[in-house]
């Protein structure tokens, strides 16, 4: 493709990353079918942040939107990465869990309702400590309750990424969709550096971080299912596909033996580079031993 073809496409597309959490969630639904639940006008704020001198947000950084995607019932739950790093607290966690549980209830009653988690989050909100940790446990058990009935789709668009406790929610989802700009990992780069030293992981080395946590690598290692461009229309189409998709016969989080074998087969005496790891892990039959 020559340059004149590339530029108009690049300029005319609607970036998804540039949207805030609310608009991201709205953009996934069929036009005119959605409504927001427990929105900012209900003012369900965190009661804990003001006690610590931090301004809360009217929706606690969690946006819940119910509607139809490709004609099928769905609920989107989006974390706003710009507010307290998208962290999960008591209120935002309760909103997320309640939305998932209502989707389960509807699905059990015969109205299959998919859930889309738009995760831009560093994990538990440290200011809410144990309540945030409890929220992560509740979210995970609610995802596990819903996924036998309807797809639970995690979408990580960037640029905050998905880390900490919420990366576990991504891990138990039916499908994970990422952009190249997005990152997914249990511990963030700075945590790893702090715990294991700069020789282990240099958190200022952006190329290294994206080579390991980035969407391309996560899809390459089959820890995520689809790599999408930062294009609202393309992301919408991908999500629609998964909302309509069949339920998975087996989930990544059930393949304990497979992942144990893969890790056991790694030779840690030499430096493992992201590309060779991708080639080994992508092989489903041999546990990466070939």
């Amino acid at each position, binding site marked *: 493709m020559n340059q004149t073809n590339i530029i108009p496409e690049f300029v005319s597309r609607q970036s998804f990353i540039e949207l805030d959490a609310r608009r991201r969630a709205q953009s996934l639904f069929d036009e005119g079918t959605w409504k927001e639940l427990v929105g*900012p006008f209900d*003012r369900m704020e965190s009661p804990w942040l003001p006690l610590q001198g931090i301004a*809360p*947000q009217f929706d606690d950084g969690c946006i819940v939107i119910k509607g139809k995607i490709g004609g099928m019932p769905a609920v989107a739950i989006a974390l706003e990465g*710009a507010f307290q790093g998208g962290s999960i607290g008591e209120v935002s966690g309760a909103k997320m869990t309640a939305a998932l549980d209502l989707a389960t209830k509807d699905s059990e009653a015969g109205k299959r309702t998919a859930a889309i988690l738009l995760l831009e989050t560093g994990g538990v909100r440290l200011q809410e400590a144990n309540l945030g940790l409890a929220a992560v446990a509740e979210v995970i058990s609610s995802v596990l309750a819903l996924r036998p009935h309807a797809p639970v789709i995690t979408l990580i668009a960037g640029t905050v990424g998905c880390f900490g406790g919420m990366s576990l929610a991504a891990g138990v989802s039916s499908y994970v969709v990422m952009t190249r700009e997005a990152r997914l990992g249990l511990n963030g780069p700075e945590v790893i550096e702090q715990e294991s030293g700069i020789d282990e992981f240099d958190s200022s080395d952006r190329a290294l971080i994206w080579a390991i946590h980035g969407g391309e690598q996560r899809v390459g290692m089959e820890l995520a299912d689809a790599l999408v461009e930062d294009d609202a229309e393309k992301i919408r189409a991908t999500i629609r596909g998964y909302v309509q998709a069949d339920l998975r016969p087996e989930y990544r989080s059930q393949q304990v033996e497979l992942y144990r074998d893969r890790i056991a087969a790694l030779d840690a005496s030499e430096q493992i580079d992201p590309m060779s790891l991708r080639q080994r892990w992508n092989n489903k039959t041999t546990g990466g031993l070939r």
Partner: protein
Amino acid sequence: MEQIEFDYPAAKRRIMKKAHVGVVGSGDMEVLMEPTQNEGAHVSITTSVDGFQSSWKAVFDRFFSRFDGAVHIRINDAGATPGSVMLRLEQAVEVINQ
């Protein structure tokens, strides 16, 4: 963190719609603008930056010199500059006037 309240009794025009704009991100704020049945407008600010009451007052004095709606304005602020505050307020008015 500081709570700041202002009253603008002269703002009496009835408003029908409500608006929510902005995010409580660093250097930004969110505003809820809702119709009120009271006479005049009321402003409630929660800001994480202390000591800027006079700056807030100056921004709202100017805002209500041009806007006369009977609204309850609620703000959560994470250090927005006066310029950003005014932009967010005008964005909310734009939604209300749509």
